[in-house]
């Protein structure tokens, strides 16, 4: 079940990306946070207890939405625009 629902841009150009190895589709104009949370319900496990997290402030302040790109770069999902062909790893499901 996704965490976010779209009320605009439903018919915007689809942007394909990979989420934990799975093909997914966002929309042109999405942040990575919106693209991921309209298909999934978490962004990352927390650093120490692996609790699910999905961001909080959506304004680049709380630093709770960091995800990893395939090239190893770590980015803040709420302030990173979705781009075609991105491979995103959230670490979700990798830890017990």
């Amino acid at each position, binding site marked *: *079940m996704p*965490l*976010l*629902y*779209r*009320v*605009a*841009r439903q018919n*915007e150009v689809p942007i394909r990306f990979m989420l934990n190895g799975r093909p997914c589709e966002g929309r*042109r*104009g*999405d*942040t990575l946070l*919106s693209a991921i*949370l*309209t298909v999934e*319900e*978490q*962004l990352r496990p*927390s*650093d*120490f*207890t692996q*609790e*699910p*997290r*999905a*961001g*909080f*402030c*959506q*304004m*680049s*302040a*709380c*630093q*709770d939405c*960091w995800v990893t790109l395939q090239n190893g*770069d*770590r*980015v803040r999902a*709420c*302030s990173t*625009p979705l781009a075609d062909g991105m491979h995103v790893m959230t670490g979700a499901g990798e830890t017990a």
Partner: protein
Amino acid sequence: MSAAAKNPAQPLIVGAGPAGIRAAATLVAAGLRPIVVDEAPACGGQIYRQPLVPDGRDARARYGSEAPKAKRLHGEFAALQDKLDYLPNSLVWNLADGIADVAMNGAHKRLVHDGLILATGAMDRILPVPGWTLPGVFSLGGSQIALKAQGCVIGSRVVFVGTGPLLYLVAWQYLKAGVKVVAVLDAAPFSARVAMVKALPGFPAIVLRGARFVAEMMMKGVAFHYGINKLRFEGTHRVEGVSFEVRGKPRHLSCDGAGFGLGLKSEAQLADLAGCRFAFNERDRVFLPETDEARRSSVPGVYLAGDGSGIAGADAAELSGERAALSLLDDRGLAVDRARVGLLERELRKIFAFRTVLEQSFPFPAHWIADLPGNTTVCRCEEIDVSTIRDAADHFGIVEMNRLKAVSRVGMGRCQGRVCGAAAAELLAAATGQPISAVGRLRGQAPVKPLPMSFAELALPAIGEAAE
């Protein structure tokens, strides 16, 4: 001879929200060419934030009653583009005397400036409660940004909880967007709202708009509860409900999304790095960088505008942005319209008085601290809970925030205590029986936000360049 000596350095404005835009326009009108650095890809700040692409909604749908102001500011800033140097997608991560270190598109730039206007804005003020880290619980500001900038909503059955005008505005905006708003839960007792009567003569439109939001939501079946206690977000992998007490009676509501915030808090880390003196603000229960009515900080050449130096809202941000810019001009020996200065300061005083009434109407629930279970996460980054803070105070005799950070790691994570600092201060004050003003504040540290490692590789040549 340095480049700076050949060409007098430009003034630097940090932030392109209402305060930064107004400051920039004022400097440009006086013939200066400011540099404007902003983290966002487009101007407007959080309040007038723009979508990444047009999404078919007009300004009215996006900004409601504030649409004319948003359009005016966006248009005004666009018209200034060839008269200033605008660095979007850029973070000022360090400040020192006359120098700003900027991360832009993965590269480093060291800016030399003459005159610094900090318009760094605000974020939601938070007290941790059980379950607040669950997916689906977003800050009120975050809930609003999802809707206005991304056209996304945080659930299909949403509860809004906290206090402050934003609580009612965001709930109403979600209702208008077609979302089922289950309830609005206000930490403040209904009796506190009586204070709003005092604001009616000066700000009738704002007071009546708030009343209209509540009336419309009640007609659509939104439940309202006031003076709630023992708030808890529930769920295993995501938020599934919210529990609370009203007049001692336990209540539970199910939901699949929750917006949470207790007013706003200034983003003051850069003022700290700039060396500005801070003072405790009783009303907001927080240390703020000191500023006089002319928006001068304690550091010559550093000016403070907008919510980053005390919460006063977007209209005040425009006024204080202009006032700060006029002080910068004045200090450069340039002509300043004294009548305009008087007008700006009078208008600001009126709004500040109104903010005091708002704070009385939506008081911060500091009493929640006593009820918090020990295993409640306070610091989201380092996952430090309530009992760790209470124990640190107890076992090590800690009475001050930076010692608490050193011992417990609270506020040491990626956000640098931006989110949890105020709550940790409340906890430490309660645990040690001190007033909140006595526990101090977390010192700001560069970089104010995390920087990518790839950025460090590019940093060296840029530093050499600046040293020429």
